[in-house]
């Protein structure tokens, strides 16, 4: 029955490709010289990376006074950026693990790049809490190890410790998932290589993969295991990130809606980022036959779904504040919408709830520049969401005498730009040196939705 259902669906891969052609289409751009466009993109992103590196070096050597924080607002830019980047990463795991468990075969064209995005986003996220500690050279103190200070152990009742465990587990498991998925393709690069250094290097990283059916069987099982482990993991990670806020008693943070609200927001922003990167990558690497309009269409539907959840959460927050009868809660939400940062709040609502409504229209979903613009706006909106949640709640808490305002310094802005530089530099290098599309997986779905010729198995 599954076979019959698949035959009625449109094909996943455009064009009448042979399996050898898939290898060629994905590997040839990597073996050719990089295009001028790629060099320009790398130059721009690595310049931002350098700017960020200089900003980080400056703030570490001078001290935390270079930030716009004050005694009222102890968290602002760094934590906003941290939550933003962690959220971006979650769409990669959604595609690689959750959609795998749901047998969404279209994910094969995008999962490699989406997983790469996850890893790079977590790396960007990791920078911020580390510099936010103020003394990043002591960051290893977060790890529970016997030490000469007592032993002075960490406090396992703190959500910040939970966060440390969640993020480091998430990074490790995502990186392993990515690498294991890549083994067969690295073997392909090794076998195709004409240059000796390329063969040696790819041979080293492919670990001597030979495609024996026993190896494939274990490989498929480990892939399923990691998808099964990755699914609860990704949900736990953003849940724990939301607990960084929700376990505090601050109005606007202390809410049970936070975990689902944050997880949906994370997948929302991450999907938008995946789409942004895919639209760039399919153009840069000429992969329009693999990442088709139908792939973009499906991802757009995920964006509109999560947008609806996020919009519902915004409404629920207001209702909860009203219904709670707590004047502090009510004040915080009125202050968000009408206070000094009202423009940030309405940017967030506009970008996250209003703009994505355009995706209801099939013609918008099929028009790539429009999708690209919407996705950029969604990411702007999701950045503002975290900024508004963090800063408005802190800046006006219970006692008006505590109230203060916050504005980022140039150093903080440069660090944020630097994280974008790191992200895009890593992604561009990834496009050059690693197959952007999971070659072996695409070969398995090549005949989906196409009339069988020689046999159903090919």
């Amino acid at each position, binding site marked *: 029955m599954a076979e019959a259902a698949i035959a009625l669906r449109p094909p996943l891969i455009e064009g009448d490709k*042979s*399996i*050898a052609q898939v*290898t060629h289409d994905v590997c040839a751009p990597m073996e050719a010289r990089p295009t001028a466009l790629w060099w320009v993109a790398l130059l721009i992103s690595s310049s931002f990376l350098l700017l960020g590196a200089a900003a980080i070096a400056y703030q570490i050597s001078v001290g935390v006074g270079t930030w716009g924080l004050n005694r009222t607002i102890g968290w602002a830019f760094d934590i906003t950026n941290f939550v933003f980047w962690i959220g971006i990463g979650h769409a990669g795991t959604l595609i690689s693990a959750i959609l795998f468990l749901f047998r969404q075969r279209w994910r094969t064209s995008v999962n490699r790049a989406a997983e790469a995005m996850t890893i790079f986003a977590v790396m960007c996220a990791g920078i911020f809490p580390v510099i936010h500690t103020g003394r990043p050279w002591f960051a290893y103190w977060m790890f*529970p190890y016997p030490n000469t200070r*007592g*032993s*002075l*152990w*960490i*406090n*396992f*009742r703190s959500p910040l410790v*939970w966060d440390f*465990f*969640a993020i*480091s*587990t998430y990074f*490790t*498991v995502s990186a*392993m*998932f990515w690498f*294991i998925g890549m*083994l*067969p393709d690295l*073997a*392909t690069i*090794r*076998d*195709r290589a004409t240059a000796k250094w390329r063969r040696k290097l790819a041979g080293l990283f492919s*670990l*001597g*993969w*030979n*495609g*024996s*059916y*026993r*190896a*494939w*069987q*274990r*490989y*498929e*099982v*480990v892939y399923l*295991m*990691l998808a099964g*482990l*990755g699914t*609860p*993991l990704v949900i*736990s990670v953003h849940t*724990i990130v939301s607990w960084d806020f929700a376990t505090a008693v601050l109005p606007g943070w202390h809410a049970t809606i936070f975990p689902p609200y944050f997880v949906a927001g994370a997948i929302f922003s991450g999907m938008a980022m995946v789409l942004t990167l895919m639209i760039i990558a399919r153009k840069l690497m000429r992969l329009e036959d693999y990442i088709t309009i139908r792939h973009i269409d499906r991802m757009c539907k995920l964006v509109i779904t999560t947008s609806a959840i996020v919009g519902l959460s915004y409404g629920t927050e207001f209702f909860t504040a009203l219904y709670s009868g707590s004047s502090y809660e009510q004040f915080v939400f009125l202050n968000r919408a009408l206070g000094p940062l009202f423009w940030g709040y309405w940017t967030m609502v506009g970008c996250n709830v209003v703009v994505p409504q355009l995706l209801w229209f099939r013609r918008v979903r099929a028009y790539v520049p429009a999708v690209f613009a919407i996705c950029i706006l969604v990411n702007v909106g999701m950045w503002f969401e975290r900024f508004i949640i963090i800063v408005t709640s802190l800046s006006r808490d219970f006692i008006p005498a505590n109230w203060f305002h916050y504005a980022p310094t140039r150093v903080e802005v440069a660090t944020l730009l630097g994280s974008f530089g790191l992200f895009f530099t890593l992604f561009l290098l990834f496009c050059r040196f690693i197959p952007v599309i999971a070659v*072996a997986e695409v070969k*398995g779905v090549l005949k989906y939705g196409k009339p069988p010729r*020689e*046999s159903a*198995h*090919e």
Partner: protein
Amino acid sequence: MKTTATYGLMAEFDSPRALITAAEKTHKEGYKKIDAYTPYPIEEVAEAIGFHHNNVPLVTLIGGIVGGLSGYLMQFWISTIDYPVNIGGKPYHSWPSFIIVTFEMTILFAGISAVFGMLALNGLPMPYHPVFNVSRFAMASKDRFFLIVFASDKKYDAVATRQFLESLGPVSVAEVPS
């Protein structure tokens, strides 16, 4: 100098269907020590040769249990025995707070066990494997499908096995030096 022994005989096919049929026939013929190499996973190959046992899930389960137990016991020991500190009036053994790190440690250990278990069971990293001595084997990761009968098989015979493999309609048959 050691004389080069034979590792096996390798037949090359140009479609998965041909490989599956050939694998079934070879298995029926009574060859037990055989293997197949494909560019992407094909379930029917395993069915044709009959390899069903897989230890990866067991390794993952053990890893997860070890991770979860060690995560919880570590927190219990640190928070109640080695370094009891009163935090917000919470009990030293505040188990609900410990669930989170326990969960993450379970996932971490299970994931690491799954990956390294798979690599170990597959014998990876493998710096040398005789199949790569056949130059056409480079296409096994592209679009060709290979079947090998190992020389260690009881029924193996340099001439008879080659004749048998050639009767299956392969693109080529090659001897694999070890």
